[in-house]
């Protein structure tokens, strides 16, 4: 397939805006994407990258602006894009119980007939899997039995099998190994030479530099700049992404934590976490870093009793195992989950009730709600944490991600915890709210609260941590002290060295 190089842009994105209740996801974004190019979109979590791709693919509608495809009218563009776009999403979208062949062939909509041609299905599937270096896979087994990296390659194969002219890749490489990524990039380069327009999102800056002809940077839902191939460097991308001096961003780490051992792990096991032994000091901010799936979130959940664990755990010198979160809460633990929507907020309730549910769970169930006490307590937290909401009865779902996160944090703090566990505490929230949360965490640590954070964002880890524990495939690879912390060193251990 050779596309006409007719001088038209593949995609002209004109002044696209998208808002959800209480949140602006995209604010007047415009950009042009050429045929036969790989166009990167960079930005921090929550900057609107994924939303933009979903709007191009037609999975979501924008509130304002239009997407012009190959110079066509907006309406015609929409119709043609449905035919010509393939997208690899961040969220898994395989049908778990169906076979590899079916999952790939379902991408090829134009081949849909009344009867299933199984032979053809398998031909298509094996063709694309071979391209990506997965020729030895059994096409008949259900995809749920495969490892995440293979599932990811199947997702990509499905997108390729639909013969797209526009390919949208949203974090398509996140679970791939280095070899697999290199293979994929070779395929992408070939597709580019054939004239496809490819949009690419990654969390590894190096991949933008290796692959992209142009990178558009977004920050807080706004367009920031376009970087050409020759301008691409990690520094140029990062400084456009963050847009401010890092030293204002993170609070200074003043007080040296005490030497008192608050939590000691010995031969701790939980899901893929194996034989982890280390200790955390009272009043320090300890960050668990590592790639997705390295076990840092399981370690936190195991500590909190949300997942079954084995091994020895000492809290303030006392040997203990938490069978459920409630037991951990009774010992002064609080946990803030990473998936705010799925595990954090109760969407249909007010911000005050959302903040009070932990506090209430400590009361006897037949007791009346102390409305006055709760309101006073919440108003004080609302002010201290700068939660922006019209009244205490505002439904939490109408707030921005940052304010929702602050409410979830308030819920944990209402218990006056001695140990605060946070998972991805700033995922998908704006820079202002991030700085606010960093400040709060540091204040808590200074008051003697032991803060344990699990994060996938390296700058954040280094910015807030007193010490960093780097994990790799379920093992604690290395604990880095203040002086040893650099992004390179964390990455070095996080990739298994």
């Amino acid at each position, binding site marked *: 397939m050779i596309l006409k190089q007719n001088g038209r842009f593949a995609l002209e994105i004109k002044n696209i805006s998208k808002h959800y209740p209480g949140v602006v996801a995209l604010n007047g974004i415009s950009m042009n994407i050429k045929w036969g190019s790989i166009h990167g979109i960079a930005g921090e979590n929550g900057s609107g990258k994924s939303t933009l791709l979903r709007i191009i693919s037609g999975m979501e509608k924008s509130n304002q602006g239009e997407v012009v495809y190959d110079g066509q009218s907006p309406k015609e563009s929409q119709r043609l894009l449905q035919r010509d776009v393939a997208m690899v999403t961040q969220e898994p979208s395989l049908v778990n119980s169906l076979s590899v062949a079916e999952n790939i062939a379902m991408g090829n909509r134009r081949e849909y007939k009344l009867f299933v041609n199984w032979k053809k299905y398998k031909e298509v599937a094996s063709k694309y899997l071979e391209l990506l270096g997965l020729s030895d896979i059994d096409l008949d087994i259900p995809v749920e039995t495969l490892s995440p990296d293979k599932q990811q390659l199947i997702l990509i194969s499905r997108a390729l099998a639909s013969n797209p002219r526009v390919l949208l890749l949203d974090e398509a490489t996140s679970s791939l190994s280095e070899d697999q990524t290199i293979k994929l990039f070779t395929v992408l380069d070939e597709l580019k030479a054939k004239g496809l327009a490819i949009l690419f999102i990654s969390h590894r800056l190096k991949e933008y530099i290796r692959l992209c002809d142009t990178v558009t940077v977004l920050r807080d839902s706004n367009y920031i700049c376009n970087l050409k191939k020759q301008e691409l460097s990690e520094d140029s991308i990062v400084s456009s992404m963050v847009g401010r001096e890092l030293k204002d961003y993170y609070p200074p780490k003043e007080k040296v934590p005490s030497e008192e051992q608050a939590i000691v792990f010995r031969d701790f096991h939980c899901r893929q976490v194996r034989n982890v032994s280390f200790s955390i000091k009272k009043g320090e901010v300890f960050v668990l870093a590592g790639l997705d799936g390295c076990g840092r979130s399981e370690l936190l959940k195991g500590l*909190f009793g*949300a997942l079954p664990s084995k091994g020895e755990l000492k809290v303030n010198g006392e040997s203990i195992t938490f069978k*459920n*979160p*409630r037991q951990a*809460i*009774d010992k002064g633990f609080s*946990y803030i*989950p990473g998936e705010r929507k*799925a*595990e*954090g*907020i*109760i*969407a*249909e*309730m007010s911000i005050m*009730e959302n903040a009070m*549910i*932990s506090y*209430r*769970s*400590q*009361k*006897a*169930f*037949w*007791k*009346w*709600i102390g*409305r006055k006490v709760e309101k006073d307590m919440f108003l004080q937290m609302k002010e201290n944490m700068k939660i922006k909401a019209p009244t205490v009865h505002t439904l939490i779902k109408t707030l921005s991600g940052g304010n929702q996160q602050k409410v979830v944090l308030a*819920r944990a703090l209402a*218990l006056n915890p001695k140990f605060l566990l946070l998972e991805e505490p700033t995922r998908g929230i704006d820079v202002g709210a991030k700085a606010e949360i960093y400040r709060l965490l540091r204040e808590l640590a200074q008051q003697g609260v032991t803060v344990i954070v699990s994060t996938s964002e390296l700058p954040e880890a280094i910015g807030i941590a007193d010490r960093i524990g780097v994990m790799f495939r379920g093992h604690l690879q290395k604990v880095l002290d203040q002086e040893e912390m650099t992004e390179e060193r964390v990455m070095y251990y996080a990739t298994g060295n």
Partner: protein
Amino acid sequence: MDNVVVEQDLQKRSQSMKKNAFKLVGIGPLLILLCVIMTILNPSFLTVNNWINLLNSISAIWIMAMAMTLVLISGGFDLSVGASLAFSGLILVNLVAAGVPELVSILITLIAVLLIGMMTNGFLIGKLGLNFFVVTLGTMSLFRGTVYVWTDGQTQYADNNPIVSFLGNGTIGLVPVPIIIMLAICVLTHLFLKYTQFGRAIYVVGGNATAAKLSGIKVSFILIGVYGISALYAAIAGIINTGKLASVSPTIGSGMELLVAAAVLLGGTSFKGGEGTVVGTTLGVLFIGVLQNGLSLSGISSYWQEVITGAILIFAILLNYFKVKQT
């Protein structure tokens, strides 16, 4: 330029008018509209006597709908309430027939059905995490089957029980006792749901069970409690029904669970959990009561009544859907 501004302004205004109009289509205004129509069709609809009749006839559904509201808020559903109603009536009749004093029989019935609800539905759904639909479908069949086996399909009679009969047929002044019980339960449930730790926790569990668990709420305890209350309320309704009819037929209450669910859903409680109020359910029950009462007053055949009831229910739910979409 000015024209554009004016146009936008007009557009905004027409949009907000649309929104305001939709505010009026909630179940409350619909209920008033329905009452007006029924009064026009048959003026005797709007008499004290008819309303006492109406409320008396929906008392059992109303009581069960209160509990069903809790169940739906918790994110579940209870198909077994109709069967529980029959089951509790049967327990009561047999206890009394065995010579147990009436008050004690009533107490034993209530406690027994509460415990059964907690140990079957509550335990399986709350503790083991089984699917509520399958579990209550099973217990529905189990309870109903037990009633058939126990009675051998025969209606059991219970005359000469002054207290039970008073609960079903007695009046205090002008007002029948079932209505008084029903109003008391309605108020109590409202207060319980709105102002107690347990009541609020039901919303949290239904709204986001994972968040509830991570915040230290005993999710299984809450769910066991909710299904226990559901069975308990069905037992109260069962005792009142037994008093009213002075008998228990093995088929009593079958299909009632769906009517109860319809009332709760009409009242704005949603199947996805975490939402709903006692006030809404009250309006939903009244809507169904007025519809049935009005249709029988106007002399429409009972076959057609059922068709019309179904159509109007779907219509009401549709309006509610458009309302939610608008806001």
